[in-house]
């Protein structure tokens, strides 16, 4: 139950969506693009999100594509996490998505919503941080930008912009990869630490959620992990020096404990690559 009312708009083209936003804004409204609406509802009922005009992007065809081209995988932002995992075109994304919430909720949660949400974890971000990926963003114009550049703690969207698609290089879809989600004590639910990883051109890449209030990939941390001259243990000890701050310290676990869990998880990742494929 929400304390606030809003108008509801369901544009069927990108253009329409953008212009509705602009008109609403001119009318002094606080419009919000949305996909699954799960965060709007759950944070909205606690008054942590507010809008008086929701723009539902689910009816825009571009936001619902899920296709492989010669070179790329194209995923619409309004695809549900279930739709992604069922087709399983990007296995690491499927694995990561399957760690989010629960199956029924994933029938509603969208890729774009998870990436653009407020929640610290935003786990669906991880595979895109690791691969050669691009975000297609609609606003006054439609721009395609490297995901790596446009994602810095949050997806850097301008006012009135929304995420349309994610494009990933086909070559990166089936690299050796690894995903592990560690929770406080349970099989589903929020992470203590989620680590997603691929190995590309002999180099291990790592992206992490749950450790900090945002998902991240750190080049320095990766450099340390790839320093094959020293033992795995030393590499990990070096790597954790490069974890950005702050480290979460909350109901899921203390900061100290999260580091302990991270160390173990990194060890699992490195060992799994050493043992060959994952």
């Amino acid at each position, binding site marked *: *139950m*929400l304390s*606030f*009312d*809003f*108008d*509801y708009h369901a544009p069927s083209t990108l253009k329409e969506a953008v212009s*509705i936003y602009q*008109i*609403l804004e001119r*009318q002094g*409204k606080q419009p919000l693009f949305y996909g*699954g*609406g*799960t965060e709007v*509802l*759950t944070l909205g*009922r606690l008054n942590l999100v507010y809008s008086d*005009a*929701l723009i*539902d992007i*689910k009816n825009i065809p571009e936001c619902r594509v899920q296709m492989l081209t010669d070179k790329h995988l194209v995923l619409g932002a309004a695809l549900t996490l*279930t739709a992604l995992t069922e087709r399983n075109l990007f296995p690491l994304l499927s694995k990561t998505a*399957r760690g989010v*919430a*629960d*199956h*029924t*909720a994933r*029938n*509603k949660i969208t890729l774009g919503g998870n990436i653009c949400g407020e929640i610290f974890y935003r786990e669906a971000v991880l595979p895109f941080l690791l691969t050669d990926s691009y975000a297609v963003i609609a606003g006054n114009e439609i721009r395609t930008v490297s995901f790596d550049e446009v994602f810095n703690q949050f997806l850097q969207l301008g006012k009135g912009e929304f995420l349309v698609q994610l494009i990933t290089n086909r070559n990166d879809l089936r690299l050796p990869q690894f995903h592990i989600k560690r929770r406080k004590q349970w*099989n*589903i639910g929020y992470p203590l630490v989620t680590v997603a990883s691929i190995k590309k051109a002999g180099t291990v890449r790592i992206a992490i959620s749950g450790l900090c209030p945002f998902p991240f990939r750190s080049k320095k941390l990766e450099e340390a992990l790839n320093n094959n001259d020293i033992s795995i243990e030393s590499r990990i000890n070096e790597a954790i020096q490069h974890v950005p701050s702050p480290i979460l310290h909350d109901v899921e676990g203390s900061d100290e404990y999260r580091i302990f869990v991270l160390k173990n998880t990194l060890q699992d990742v490195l060992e799994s690559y050493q043992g060959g494929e994952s």
Partner: protein
Amino acid sequence: MKTSSSPFREVSLHVNGEIKPVLIKPSDTLLYILRVKLGLTGSKPGCLNGDCGACTVNVDGMAMKSCLMFAIEAPGKRIITIEGLKGTPIQHAFIKEFAFQCGYCTSGFIMNCYSLVENYPDANDELITEMLESNICRCTGYQEIENAVKSVLSSNKNLEK
């Protein structure tokens, strides 16, 4: 852009095989409309936060937490609630296997199980777990629910043979 002053809108919902005209506000959840406007109180509020599954219904063939869906998103979709199931095998199995006690989680659990047996007749243990962990039952030990679901899945398989 026209924005009407009244938040209410008249829409038609397709629920349990019937078309129901109903007055909704965009901010109403599907759960609220089902229970309060349509009197279908079988779907239960357990958290209103997407966490417990007590409100689970079936939307276009898929399990859906009706507290996580705006009613305004529902027109044009086929909704089945627990009241729309009549003597299905999964309902019988729940009785036979003592798969509930207080019954409060039961509508949601059955609706989720219903989607499972309809959509994934070959579900293995892993998939069964993945789907059923969406709901909380506080009374049973889940063993009874597992027996109920598996009895339906296996009897369906036997029928096919």
